[in-house]
Structures are given as C-alpha cells and as structure tokens.
C-alpha cells in the first residue's frame, strides 16, 4: 500500500485518501465548445511516467492537494505549491 505525502499530515497510507483525478485545466465555461468541455469532463492523459494528480485526504485533514506520481513505479513526490 503506497504512501502519499500529505502536505499537512506527512506520509500516510493511500487508504486514507480518495483519488480525485489527473489535474486537467478547466476550460472557460463561457467560451468552451461542447467538445472541449466534454474532453475536460471525461478525457484523461493516462500517461506512462510522472503525472500530476489531485487527492483528497478524507480520513485526515480533509484537504484537497496535488502530488506527482510515477504511474509505472508508484513513486510519489510532493508538489510546491500543494494546490
């Protein structure tokens, strides 16, 4: 069970967290086409290697934050800034 580096609580078991998603920029809802909006809703990069993703520490400080994770080795590292 991997450890996630929570910026406030330190290294904690992944079971304390909820995965939110890969960080994807939110298009401007006023100008986005349906295609762009739905790419934002449903498409993710799913890349090999380091990705930036958001997690929620539901069984701890209840904060949303981003970390980097290597999808091959499951290594994780904190990001600055955390949000």
């Amino acid at each position, binding site marked *: *069970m991997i*450890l996630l*580096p929570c910026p406030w609580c330190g*290294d904690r078991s992944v079971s304390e967290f909820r995965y939110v998603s890969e960080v994807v920029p939110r298009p401007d809802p006023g100008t986005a086409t349906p295609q762009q909006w739905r790419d934002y*809703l449903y498409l993710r990069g799913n890349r090999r290697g380091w990705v930036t993703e958001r997690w*929620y520490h539901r069984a701890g400080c*209840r904060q*949303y934050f981003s970390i980097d994770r290597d999808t091959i080795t499951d290594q*994780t590292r904190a990001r600055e800034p955390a949000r």
Partner: protein
Amino acid sequence: MRPPGPQAGPRMRLGPQPGEVIDRSAPLTFRWNGRPYPAYQGDTIISALAAAGERVFSRSFKYHRPRGLLTASYLDPGCTVQVGDEPNVRGAHRLAQDGMDVAAQNSWPSLRFDVKAANQLVTAFLPAGFYYKTFIKPQRLWPAYENVLRRFSSGGVAAPDTARDYYDKRYAHPDVLVAGGGPAGMAAAISAARAGARVMLVEEEHQLGGHLRWGTDAERAVLRELAGEVAAQGAIEVLTNSVVIGRYDGNWVAVVQRGLPGVAERLIKARAGALVAAPGLIERPYVFAGNDLPGILLSTAVRRLVTMYAVKPGQRAVVLTANASGDAAVGDLRRAGVEVVHVADARRGGDVVRAHGRGGVQGVELAGGSRFDCDLLVTATGWTAPMSLLTMAGDRPVYSPRAARFFPDPQRLPGDVLAAGGVAGDGSLEEMLGHAGAVGGEAARRARRAGPAAPVPVLPVLPVLPVQEHPELFHGRTHGFVDLCEDVSSKDLRTAVQEGYDSAELAKRYTTATMGPTQGKLEAVNVVAILAELTGRSIAETGTTTWRPPYSPVTLGALAGRIFEPVRHSPMQPWHEQHGARPLVAGAWIRPDHYGDPAAEARRVRESAGVIDVTPIGKLDLRGPDVPKLLNLLYVNKWSRLGIGRVRYGVMCAEDGVIMDDGVTGRLGEDRYLMSTTSSGAEAVAEWAENWLQTAHRDWQVHLTPVTTAYASMNVAGPRSRDLLRRVADGVDLAPEAFGYMHVRTGRVAGVDECVLWRIGFTGELSYELHVPASYGLHVWETLLAAGQDLGAGPFGVEAQRILRLEKGHLIVGQDTDGLTQGFSAGLDWAIKLDKDDFAGQSELAWQAAKADYPRLVALQPVDGSVVPPEACQIVGDGSSIVGRVTSSRMSPALRRSICLAHVAAHLATPGTLVDVLLPDGRRIPARVMERLAHFDPEGRRMRV
C-alpha cells in the same frame, strides 16, 4: 553416547541430546488415527510419531502413494494431517498437545490400506494434464464425475459446523522488520537495535536459531550467545511461530502470527521503515526413481530429528552427500546409533539410481551398480534460496551456476529492502554474522530516512559475501517425483514439453508442478533445471515462475479479521425500537421505516399531525461574507438576494449537468446560513463544496462545517402541526403572518435553546422541521408526542413520508433521477437560471435546453387505479422499444388509487398521453400522463396555511 537398548518408551526415541527442544519432564498423550501415542512438550506431531517408529503419515495427492518424512519442517509434503476439525495441518511443524486428536487425510478406508491407491494402476490414464483431457464428455455425466472425483480429491475435512474461532488484527510500525530468525536474522536485529531502531524479528519456527539449532556444540554455543543478546535488547520484539507472508508497496508487510492462546491467527499489518530478508536456505530434494518412498529424508531432516527431537530416523542408512550438511548428517546418524552402511559422495561421482521397497524404502541401487539394503536413505544435494519476499519487492533473481542457486539482484531492490544470510551469499559463520550485522545497522540508518517525503539518500556499499561452489545436482539418471505435493514426475515434465508447454509458466500450469502446498519452495529449481535440459536452454534462460503472496498459508479468518460494521442512528432510535418501528437500512443509517401501518400514518399526517425522525438529512453550517457566491456556484438557481430568515429550495448539478443533490438552504443571520442536503449526499456535498473552496476559489471567505450529526432533526407535519408546536415552542412567533412558508427561525423548543425551526413542506402539509442540538433529540421528540396526544398526533416513518411526497410529486434525487438525468429532465425548468454567472453544470444545461428531445419526468396514473406498478418497470413503445421507466410508485391513501412518477421520452410527455407500462409478469397496462407532477393538492394550498 548410549547405545539403543531395551526401552520402556517409544522405540525410536534416543536418550537426552544436548540440543533437544523437548521437555522430558512434561509428557503428554495424543491420538493418531484413533490410537494413543506418547509425546513430550516441544515435540511436533510427526516427531512424536517418528519416535514411536511410525513412518507413513499420508497418501499422496493423485496416486495415493504412502508418504512419510522428507524435510521434517513446515514444508514437509508427506506430513499434512487433520487435527480435530482443522484440516491440512503441517504435522512436522505443529506442536503436539495433550488430548489432541490427529487423523490421516486423503485415504480410505485407512492409511495402511488405501483403496484409492488403485489410482496407481491407472497411471497411464492419469498423466500430467489429464484434467484437461478426461471427464469432459458426455457433459450430462459431470455430476456423476464430480461425485467420484470428490472422494478422490485430497485435503482434509472442513466441517460446516466447525466452531467459530477468534481472529485478531494488529498494526505495527517497526523501524526495521527482520524476516527470519536464524543466525543472520538475529545478528541483523541486534545490530539494528544497537543503532537505535525498533525491531520486529519474525521467525517461522518455534525457536530462534535456524540451522544452529541442530548444529555442532560450537554452533549451539553461538546460538545461545545470540539469543541472549536478542533478549537483552529491549527494542527487539520477537515473534516465533509467525511468518512474513507478503511485502507490498512502501514496505507494507503482512505477518501472520500463530499459536497465540485464544487467538486462531493474528494478522499483523506492519509499515516497516526497512525490511531485512534473512530467510535462510531450504534444502532441495533429489529426483530419482523411488524418491518418494517413506524413509528417504534430507540431511537437514535427519539432523533436526536427532539433535532437536532425539529421534532415531532409521536402523540402516545410505547417505548421498554433496555438501557439509550431508557430511555432518553422517556424524549425527552414527551418534544416534544408526548403522551407516554406505556414504556416496556426489562430489566424486556418487549417485543414487533408484530406491525400492513396499510401504517404505528397503534398498537402494547406486551408480556403479552397488546395491544396499537399508531403511533410511539420506540425500544432501543442494540448497534453494527462498526468493519470494525479495521478488515481491521488485527483485528479479539471477541464477549463479557456481552456487547452483538464485541470488537477488541488488540493482533491482528498493533502498529500504536488504538481504542477509544464505540468500545473500556464503561464508563461515563468522563472516555471515559480520555481514548480517552490517546489513542490520544499515537498515536502521535507512529506516530513519524512509518515506516519499524524505530525500533520497546516497546508499553506502555494503560488504558482499563470497559465493562458494555448490555442485549442480537436481536429478539422477532415472525419472522420479519432482513435485511431491502434486505427484508430478520428471516424466510429466517431459510430456509437457513434448506437447508444447515448454516455458516455466506454461509447464507449471499444465503439470501443476509448484502449485501445491509447498508452492515451489522445495521443487521449483528442480523443475526449472529439468525443463532447461529438456528444452536445451540454461537455467538462467528458463527463469522461474513468479512468486506471489502469501508466502505461507493464511486462514481466511485472519484476512477477514474482526467484523466491525458501524451503524448510525439518531438519538431517538431507542424510542423507535420500543414502539415497534420496522428498521430501514439506508447506507450506514438505521431509520424507522414504519410503525406497523404506513398508510394509516400517512392519513394521520393529512388529517391531524405526524412527527418523523429525519436526522440523517445532511446539514452544513456555512458562515462568511461570500456564502452567497458559493450557493450561486453550487445551485442552479439564484441566491444573492436571500433575506435573513428566508429559505430557498435548491438543486445541485455536477459539471456534466446531471442532478447531484437537492435540499433547502436558509439564511439565519447576516453571514450565517444552514444548508440541508439529501441524507445519502451529506458527505459528498460537503466534499464537493470544499473542493471548490480549497482549489478554484481560495479567496472566498467561507467556513463550512458539517453538522449532520450535531442536530437531531424531526419534521412535524399536518394541519394541526402549528397547534402542536405552539405547546412546546418558545421565543418564536408561529403566527402565519410572522412565520410564513419557506422561512426559518431559531428558538427554544421543549426548553432546549438554539433550535432551528424551518417552515418547509416535503409532505405537502403545513409542516415545521426542527433541528435540535443532538443530545436533546430524544427529549424533544418525546415532549412533542406527549403534547400532541389529544390532537391525534403520532409518529410516522420513512415509508409514509415517501407516500406523502409522491402524492405531491416531489422528486427524490437518486430515486426519480439517475446518473444520466440532467437538470431539465426533472421538471426543474423553473429553478435553472442560465443567465447566472458560472455555476456547476451551466454549460451542459444550456446545451440540453437547446435540444428538445430529452426525456422528462412526469406524473403517471395507471388507468386501473388498483394496479401499483413496481418501481423500475419499463415503459414500452412500439414493438419492444423502451421509452421510459417508472421511478416511484405507491398506492395513494388520499386518492385511493395508484400514483407514479416516471421518465418518459420527450414525445410522450404531453399531459393526457397514454403509455404502456410493462409489468414483471408480462402484462402491459395503460397509464396516463398527468397535467402536473403533484397528484394531490397541485396548487400547494395545504402547505401555505
């Protein structure tokens, strides 16, 4: 040394041995196949039976061949027995206990005479892979085949009425976890503790010491020193009769602890800073014809039996030795009074061709043609490194032809996993202890710096152990058993290769070699070596199969642990139980479904007054000047001008426009709001709001506090509800002009301050929802009901509320909406304000509005009012097309007919349209689309009095 003479005791028990682990002052008796046998405290089941001269302990899996001792350790394939109601007990590891009832498995009618040995006569029909080729046709005979095969399948008996055992779980956070309590493990633990680490030392057997326990006097003296040092180090926690069964990411390690009093098995989940794998080496069996006969033992088995258990393994022995262990075994045998008739040195060309005998070995034929009569054949042909734990950590073992075994690849191990002892190399005892000490000290240092938050350290180079020469001896010149658990012979491996299954993974699956209880620990290298030869490759090229957790068997009970099922209920639950409420399980909440007659409860609400416990409703306390911005973002309607004391109903959509939640939010003060959500959405809405506040809108000043369980909530509904509330409320003007519909006040109810009173109406009647500080919930509830007795007031449950709200056409998110229902499909056009600034779901809702053909939520009444279509019935169009679904459906007490809410395709949503509802029994009934969602009091007059 005393020669064996006439003894009163078991005929193969020796006199006291200096290293014995049995306690002769504590004798006990147990039963084996119905007959009593003596033992001493410290004996295993098998050592006691062997002391009594028994040799056959089981029948093999497929061919039912008699089997006896081979390794005298946990892994011994021939020593699996049934103890009481516990099947598959490893008899050479389980300690004998007074009164134990032990029986043989897999033989009928008895161990001696096993009818199922008839299998041997049909071996021609039972080659490797026969499962895939036989008992296939005709298919209708499968039940008959199963009945027969069931009797022949191996394993003990697990009776359905076996008494429940207690299984335990524990969490641990050792700095260093040492897997293996032999000399290397002990040295590593001592060194780590001296460097300041908290150490957990896990040993599979009942004592620490590994092979030193059956070693020379000098080796046992070293053991005593090490054991003393381990005991002296307070920071080392020793777990014997315990196994590390798996290593997962981040040194998340599972340990099974056995033999605790009162606990069948304990599962320890440990997060180790550093892991030291010191599993030692496992002795390999040799493959030759007759190699499974009882009386053929490994050298380590012989040394254990003689030194630890004072058991004479036989009378006349032949020894095939290729290493120091075999040489030492010769000495141990002679000390025990066994006549060693011949020692064949495999380093100089000695070899066993075949062994023969009935029910046990009676003679052997060696290379060169010599034959000897014997009842004991000892082989010492090499060592296998148990690589499982390291491969679970990412290692890919590398084969060394010089050492005839696999080694870990240090490049592939993560920095917090280290290896010590035989698995890391060879050397004198001193060299090995020195190396293990260095490893332990380094493990302690690395543990300090573990974790993804820590910087990656520069790892110092550890001392490397030399690798000595070991002859590559895997099989002789005749075919024999390779996997004794699965009855797989080298001939079967040849068949597999001939049929095309020539890789290690394929051959394993086809023959089932290494798939038995030993899981390859004894036989994998022999399998690989034979496959390599058959396919003309090297062992390194052939590779091994993949090692996966668990390393050792673990009961399902230990994995399940204790069952904790948290249950949530309101403070009024004891009252509900006392008054016969039928419980409704709603997620983790227990709610009162009804108190016997939900239709009567609904009628009471329409006629006088009812009180319902709605505590699970989600409540969020929102404070700050920017709360209206948050409300505008989360809800589809407008919130900037909500006055103090006013309440508004809101609907939340997700960013795909799908309805997520609904509820009412009231403004209690300048910067103070209280939001209610559905009970199942309470947590999700709080997290959703927090996500926005923490990431996209960090500049907004809003404090959000979930208060779902801080308040007990109850709804007083019905024409007499105001009269009832007047009797218990204080400090609130309840007159309709002062406290109108969709308003909120605070006040004192039943003497309790800080209550929130909402005038809202889910049931469609005049009603007040009270939020009371939770610890006073039961008091307020009881006071209300007592005060309302003469008014005809009484409790009503969730079912009655469902009926009442359906009569009013009020939707329930998740019941009348699903994962695809976007805002405009639920009759909420009036609420969705597309001209607002950006709010969640706005884009998708705008695009939905631009199309006309989305499905719609409508009220439906079956033409025959006595038929109540079950919820989720399909609405069918021409042919068999599905054009909708009934989402809610009840018999209405107020209208005395069935009423529904349903999704229908856009073209059918016009009021007056007749649609066909398909009932589960196949009938189609017509139903009419109604004018409005409300079936009863569509103008909403009753709530506004």
